[in-house]
């Protein structure tokens, strides 16, 4: 549902609920009872459900993640003009949806991965407003980056399965797929956001 329609729906639902409340005597009639049922139960429940879906959807957007100042450098790292920066090469080559760039790589592809990501987000909010905000370069992942997140997209892809670098060692792919060798910390794809080096970087400007 487009946000403008949702906003209109919430506004109308709220208005109707308040009108029924201030004209509560209308509930003495049968029609009034039906109106109250719709205005005080059906419409608010629908509005909350639609709003919840919209908020969950927005929480996955790149704009949402980068709205905290401390994340600004991480956003800039997506436009570094250097193919060795893994997030930059994914972002600039549309290997991930640009409007969900952060979430695509930083959710865990498990049953409760989305919920865990949201809980982490609430903790980030606590740190942002009530805690001590770390320097961007001091921000660390909660746990080492799991190959599962890479394989969610790359598994089965020709460039991954047949890439020459992946076949120099015949056991490499098996180890990577089993999670025994990290794509990132093994040193093969270890330039990630690297925000500490951004001051020396050049940046890609998308053609208009």
């Amino acid at each position, binding site marked *: 549902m487009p946000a403008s329609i949702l906003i209109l729906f919430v506004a109308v639902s709220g208005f109707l609920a308040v009108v029924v409340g201030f004209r509560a005597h209308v*509930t003495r009639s049968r029609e009034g009872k039906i109106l109250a049922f719709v205005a*005080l*139960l059906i419409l608010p429940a629908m509005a909350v459900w639609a709003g919840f879906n919209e908020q969950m959807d927005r929480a996955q957007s790149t704009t949402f993640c980068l709205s905290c100042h401390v994340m600004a450098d991480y956003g800039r790292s997506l436009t570094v003009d250097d193919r060795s920066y893994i997030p930059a090469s994914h972002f600039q080559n549309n290997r991930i949806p640009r409007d969900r760039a952060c979430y695509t790589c930083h959710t865990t592809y498990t049953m409760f991965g989305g919920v865990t990501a949201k809980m982490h987000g609430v903790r980030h909010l606590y740190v942002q407003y009530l805690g001590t905000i770390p320097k961007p370069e001091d921000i660390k992942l909660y746990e080492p980056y799991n190959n599962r997140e890479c394989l969610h997209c790359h598994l089965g892809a020709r460039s991954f399965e047949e890439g020459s670098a992946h076949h120099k060692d015949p056991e490499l792919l098996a180890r990577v797929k089993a999670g025994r060798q990290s794509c990132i910390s093994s040193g093969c794809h270890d330039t990630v956001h690297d925000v500490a080096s951004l001051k020396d970087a050049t940046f890609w400007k998308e053609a208009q």
Partner: protein
Amino acid sequence: MEAPVIETKINWASKLIGAGLLVQLLALLAVHPLAFVLFLAVGCPLVAAGIVLYLLSLVSSSQA
């Protein structure tokens, strides 16, 4: 004339729901983590409390 208890409850339920939906409306105007928390921590409980109060008013009126 004093309003029946059910109408008082409906009045309060509508106030809670109206306030909750107003918060939800404000939270929809910005794409920001604070808006997300405002929606979940304030908007949803207010609407839920209003709906519960309305349902309680129905139960109490049917018992009367």
